[in-house]
C-alpha cells in the first residue's frame, strides 16, 4: 500500500505500470484518475488545492486500510496532489488490485467516495474574476451511505 500526498505532477502510465507489475496474485487492476476540469463557461485559469498536512496522510491511510480489509485487496495506491494545478492536469489517482474485478472496481469507488468528503483537501477555482472555493455537494455526503 502506498499513499503519496505531493505537489509534484505524476506520470499516470508509469505509476499504473509499476503498480500492476508489483502485485502478486491479482487478476484485476483498476485505476481512476481525477483531472482538473474547465468550468462549463470556460475561463478556469487554475485550481488551487489546499490540504491539512499531518491529517491528510492519516485520513487517507484509514480509508485505504478499510478498503484493503473489506475487499481483500492485494495492493492499493493513492496519489493526491496539492498546490496550483492547470486545467487538464491530473489531481489524483487511485489504483486497486484484487483477485477479481468486482472487488477492484468497488474498492476504487469506495476510495473515491471517501477521499471526496473525508480527506482534508479544499479546492479553489481561479478565474480572471478571482477565486471561488468549491462547495461540497450534498450528493458527495449521500454517496457514503451506500457503503
Amino acid at each position, binding site marked *: 500500500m502506498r499513499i503519496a500526498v505531493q505537489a509534484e505532477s505524476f506520470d499516470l502510465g508509469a505509476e499504473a505500470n509499476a503498480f500492476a507489475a508489483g502485485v502478486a496474485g491479482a487478476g484485476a487492476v483498476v485505476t481512476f484518475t481525477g483531472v482538473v476540469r474547465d468550468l462549463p463557461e470556460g475561463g478556469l485559469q487554475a485550481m488551487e488545492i489546499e490540504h491539512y498536512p499531518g491529517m491528510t496522510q492519516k485520513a487517507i491511510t484509514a480509508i485505504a486500510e478499510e478498503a484493503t480489509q473489506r475487499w481483500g485487496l492485494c495492493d492499493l495506491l493513492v496519489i493526491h496532489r496539492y498546490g496550483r494545478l492547470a486545467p487538464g492536469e491530473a489531481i489524483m489517482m487511485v489504483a486497486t488490485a484484487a483477485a477479481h474485478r468486482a472487488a477492484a472496481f468497488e474498492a476504487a469507488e469506495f476510495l*473515491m467516495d471517501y477521499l471526496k468528503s473525508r*480527506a482534508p483537501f*479544499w479546492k479553489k477555482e481561479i478565474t480572471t474574476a478571482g477565486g471561488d*472555493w468549491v*462547495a461540497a455537494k450534498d450528493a*458527495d*455526503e449521500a454517496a457514503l451511505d451506500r457503503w
Partner: protein
Amino acid sequence: MMQVLYFAWVRERIGVPREAVETEAATVADLVADLIAREDRYAAAFADLSALRVALDQELAEFDAPLAGVREVAFFPPMTGG
C-alpha cells in the same frame, strides 16, 4: 495553550492559518463562542456552524466534543478532495 488551525475560506476570513489560543473552553462549541466574543472576524467565520467541520488532534469530531487533553483544533469547510 492550544493550537488552532484554519483552512480554506475559514482561514481567509480569520486572516491567519494557525494561532496559539489561551482558553478555558470545555468543548469545541465553547471555544467557538470564546473566539466569536473576541473579534468580528471570528464571528464572520463561525456565523454558520452547519457549514463547518472540526478536527481534534487531526481526527474529525463533533462541536459538542470535549477539549480536555486536546492539543490541536482545526476548523474548515466540508472537504472537497478527489
